[in-house]
Each structure stands twice: as C-alpha cells, then as structure tokens.
C-alpha cells in the first residue's frame, strides 16, 4: 500500500508538471510562429517550415521556465488531492522516512532530466535550430510578396501585377529613403556576393526631396539593398554547455555559465518547496492566498537574479562573488520564509 501511495504521488507529480510544461511551451511555440508570420506579412507555404524550425528551439526555451512549471504543477496536484481528501489518507499512510525517500527520489529525478536537457539536448537542438533559422531568415530576408504587394521592411515597397520566380512585372515602387518613385516594366531580385539588389528595367524614376528634385527615364536601374546583408552563423551562449561557458574567453559567456550553475541550486530549492506544497494541508477552503504569495516570492527571486546577471555583464565593479552571495542570500531567505508559510 505504501509502495502504491508513493508511486501514485510520483505519477501525479510528473503528470501535472508535464501537462503544465506542454501547455505553456506549446503556447510560447505558437506565439513564436504567429509572430514570425505577422512580421513576414503571412507566408502560408512556409508555416510548416517555421513550425518545424521553432520546434527545435523549444528545449532551450524550457530551461528557465522549469522551476515555475514545477511550482504550478505542484499547486495543481495539491488542489487535486485536497479536494478528493486523498491528502489526509496519504499523510496517514506515509511515514516521515518513506516521505524523505520519496522526496529525494523526486528531486534527484527532476535534476537529472533538467541536467540532460540543459547540457545535452537543448545544446544539440539549438545548433540545428540556428542553422535552420538562418536559412529561413536569409530566404525571408526580403519578406514575402502577398496580394500583389512586396514590402522590404521600411526600405522599399513594390506593387506589381504579375510575378514569376524572382521577377515582378508592371510595377510601381516606392523607395522611402530618398522619396523615390519608380514605374517600370519589371524588377528582378538579384543576389550579389553578400547583398541583395533590385534591378529595374525600362521605366521612369522621380525623386522628390529637399536636396534633389528630378525625373529620369532609364533602361536599367539597380538599387542596392545595403542593410540587407546575407547573414552568417554566429555562435551564441546557447550553443555551449555549462563547462564550455565557464571556460569561454568572453566575460558575458562566462557570466552566463555561472548563472546556469546558480539555476541548478534554484531548481533544488523549487524541488524542495514543491514537495512541501504537494502535501500542504490546512482546514481551509482553499490556499490561493498562500500559493499566490509563494509564486510571487519565487518570481521576485528570478527577477533579482536577472538584475544581478545584468549588473555582472555591464558593470566591471560588480564582482562574481557579489553575484553568488546576493543570489544565495535571497534564495535561502526565500526558502525559510516559504517554509514558515507552509508550516
């Protein structure tokens, strides 16, 4: 019976964490897809490609959110077993010793999964994600033509009648930079070395600005999109695991590595708190106020940690020792405060 009770808690603990993880990571994933689609004026044929690529980034999105997802999962599990009065039965059947073993197992298992994701899975997937993302970004670098309009950021707008491959026919174009307006038979997009060019053929061009007022007739006119360079792959912090980050020559990367170490301790604290939350029982109707306060406290610890990493990155006088010291002071105080609340 005790074995069953323990496995019941383990099963439900991971079930709720997994549900919450799927919901929120799913929402973040969807919002990323929609955001990209909105920026690119809707690109129906690339939805699958964008969805697939952003999916590769999810393991690295998960890491900073894990402590919060564990916390929310624990709140849900507590509500569930409290409503059905299972909490009283579990408390009666499980001794302090068996609870301790159970808690140690849950925390250890959570940390192992988190470490594997943090150090191996997210790194591997992120590498793939960045390569795919770069491909898409370069493909979409100029945006996508939709409904006979083609807008390249706030540089050029092309209005066309027909399109075939990279050529647009019977066009009117506005080049915002110098208040230029072009009416021509066709415009072709050309890639030269690292730039994109717009090559207009057989048309007229008018410039109306403070410096120049002119009108020209041309056979061929080339406009270079200088700010639209072909991007190359750059390695960022998520390309490395904790050990590689700590030994990196750049300070920001090293700081990020130390922040990752702190997050392991943060996760252990959340693990301890979450187990207290699961078996927390008060003879009140609900624990909303207490749980809200705990959630807020943890959120504050996270915001403070973000501020400290910001100080570490931007101010030389702020030493690594201060970063660890302040973070741990807050972490330990939060733990004791929450312990007091859950007594």
């Amino acid at each position, binding site marked *: 019976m005790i074995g069953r009770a323990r496995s019941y808690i383990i099963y439900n603990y991971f079930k709720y964490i997994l549900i919450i993880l799927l919901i929120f990571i799913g929402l973040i994933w969807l*919002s990323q897809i929609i955001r990209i689609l909105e920026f690119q004026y809707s690109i*129906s044929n690339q939805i699958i490609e964008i969805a697939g690529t952003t999916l590769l980034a999810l393991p690295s999105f998960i890491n900073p959110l894990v402590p919060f997802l564990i916390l929310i999962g624990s709140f849900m599990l507590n509500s569930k077993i409290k*409503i059905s009065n299972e909490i009283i039965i579990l408390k009666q059947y499980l001794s302090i010793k068996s609870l301790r073993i159970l808690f140690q197992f849950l925390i250890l298992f959570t940390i192992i999964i988190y470490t594997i994701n943090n150090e191996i899975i997210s790194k591997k997937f992120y590498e793939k994600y960045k390569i795919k993302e770069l491909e898409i970004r370069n493909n979409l670098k100029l945006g996508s033509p939709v409904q006979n309009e083609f807008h390249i950021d*706030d540089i050029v707008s092309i209005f066309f009648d027909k399109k075939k491959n990279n050529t647009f026919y*019977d066009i*009117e174009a506005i080049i915002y930079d110098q*208040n230029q307006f072009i009416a021509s038979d066709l415009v072709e997009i050309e890639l030269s070395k690292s730039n994109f060019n717009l090559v207009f053929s057989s048309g007229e*061009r008018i410039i109306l600005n403070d410096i120049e*007022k002119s009108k020209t007739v041309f056979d061929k006119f080339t406009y270079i999109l200088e700010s639209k360079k072909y991007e190359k792959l750059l390695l960022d912090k998520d390309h490395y695991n904790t050990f590689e980050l700590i030994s990196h020559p750049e300070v920001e990367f090293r700081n990020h590595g130390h922040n990752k170490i702190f997050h392991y301790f943060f996760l252990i604290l959340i693990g301890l708190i979450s187990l207290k939350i699961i078996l927390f029982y008060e003879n009140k109707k609900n624990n909303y106020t207490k749980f809200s306060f705990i*959630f807020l406290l943890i959120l504050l610890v996270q915001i403070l940690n973000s501020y400290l990493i910001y100080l570490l990155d931007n101010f030389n006088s702020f030493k690594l020792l201060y970063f660890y010291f302040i973070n741990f002071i807050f972490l330990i105080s939060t733990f004791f405060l929450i312990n007091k609340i859950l007594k």
Partner: protein
Amino acid sequence: MILPLYLARKFFKAFIICAVLSYSIFFIFSLMGYLGEKLSFKSIFLISNLNSFQIFTYIPSHLFILSLCLFVFNLKSRNELIIIKEYFDLKKLFLIIFPILALFIYAEIKKENLSNTIERIKSNVINSKKIGDTKIFISLDGNTKKYTIFSRYDQDNDFINQYLSFESQNQKIHRGEISTNLYLKGSDLFSNESTVYEKNNFQYENFNKRLFENFQSFWTKNTGTIIKHKMINASSGYYIIHSIFLSVLFYFCISMIFFSKKLVVRGVNIMKIFLLVLSVFLYYLLIPKIILNNFQYLFHFISIIILILTFINIKKYE
C-alpha cells in the same frame, strides 16, 4: 440568480489565475531572452512586460480555453457539474457565459490594433524606427493610379511632417508632389507650400492648398500601412464579418465541448477531449494566417463551413 452569480464568480477566479500564471511565464521567457541585449535593465523589464501582453494579443483564445478548462474541471471535481447540468440546459449555460464570450470575440477582432500599439511602444522604448509611422493610400481613377504617402510622423504633436504623392499610368509617371509644410484646417490636410512635378516640369507653389480631405478621420480609422481606396469599405467590412463569424463559431465550439454531457460522465477519455480542443484551437489560429493569391474568398468560405460542421457535430449529442 444565486447559481449564475456563483458560476460567474468561479469563472472569474479561474480567469484571474490563468491570466496571472500565463503572464508570469511569458514574462520570465521574455526577460531571459532580452537579458543579452544592450539595453538598460529598466528597458528590458518594460519590454518583457510589453512582450507578455503582446503574446496575449497574439492568442487571446488561449486564456479562454485555459480558464474554461480550469473552471469546468474544478466544478467536476466537486461533483457540481452534474448539478449545474441538471439545473441549466445548454441554452441557459450559454446565456450565462455570453458576456464573457462577447468580450473575447471583441478582443479577437481588436487584437491586431492592440498588438500594433504594443509594438509601437516597444519600438519607442528601444528607440528603433519601424514602419507603421508611414501610411500609403492607393487610389484608382480610371487607368491612373495615385500613391499618397504620409510620413515623418511626429509623436509629440501626433501629426505627419511630409506629404508625397505620385500618379502613374501604364508605367509612366504623370505627376508628383511633395510638401513638408503642412497643417490641419478642420479635419482636412493643407500645405503652405509644395513642389509639383507635372508635364515634365517641376514648379514651386507658394500658396495654401488643400491636399487631403477628412485627413484626421482617415489617419485614426486606418491602422494599417497600406490603404486601398476601392477596396477599403467592401474589403475591410468583409474581413471583419469573416473574423466575427470565425470567432463566434470557434468560441461556441470550445464552450460546447467543455459543457458537453460527455464531460459529466466519470471515467471520460480526457485525452480525446484534449485533442479535439487542440485541433479546433490550431485550426482557428492558423486559418486566418493563410493568405492565398487566388480563391481567397472560397478558402474563407470553406474554412467557415468546416467549423460550422464541427459545431453541428458536437451539438448533435447534446
């Protein structure tokens, strides 16, 4: 009256919980993402908050689904769902949640405006110049196409500083005009001086001239960058009706699934319901994002028919 009030209070509680939790998760996600940027912490903090709000504007329906899910499962766990289903038929239940549904449908229609506003505030925070400050009005007069460009928007005075217009016919430019000395008279846009290109000549005009009628209402009513004259009324009206139709059907489908008889039964296959909600949700999210060059209206029509059929299919068991 006690029971509807009790239900409204419970739903509101579920809504607050879901909103706060979602907001916090989105906030942490944005905060961690922006930490590497070369911005002050105050700006990072503000942008992260705005980003969290923006995710809500991208998918407001998620909040409705999560709140309804929490609300229904909370009722179910206390065996209150059976009692409620006994007291209220589906019509009455819909009547109770109608204000909430109306609110969400309104948010769905206005979400683009909200998202644009947030994007503009974000651009101001990071001092980046983005499109949206420029509006292009395209009109057709016979074979002549006219492009009117209002730009150099001054946020402090809430007014544009440059008027440009170009007219072309069969890929030949007939007329062009620029003015950077603008003012409003009533609701119309006037210029004190301008330069005009016409009949192969550039001429400077130093007199007051009305450039655009009813400019003020044009600027506030049209939130997009490109505004097309002939399509303006019919097309935007069509898109609003389509959007309302799609949203109403979607929210009714979701509500119907959560208030269905199947959910009252103990041992119901939750996974099946979850997959159904997820499919309807994804369908509703992605269909409006698909823009076809041809057969767009037919595509919209079929997408609505599919949702109506789904709705009828769910309803027939009730």
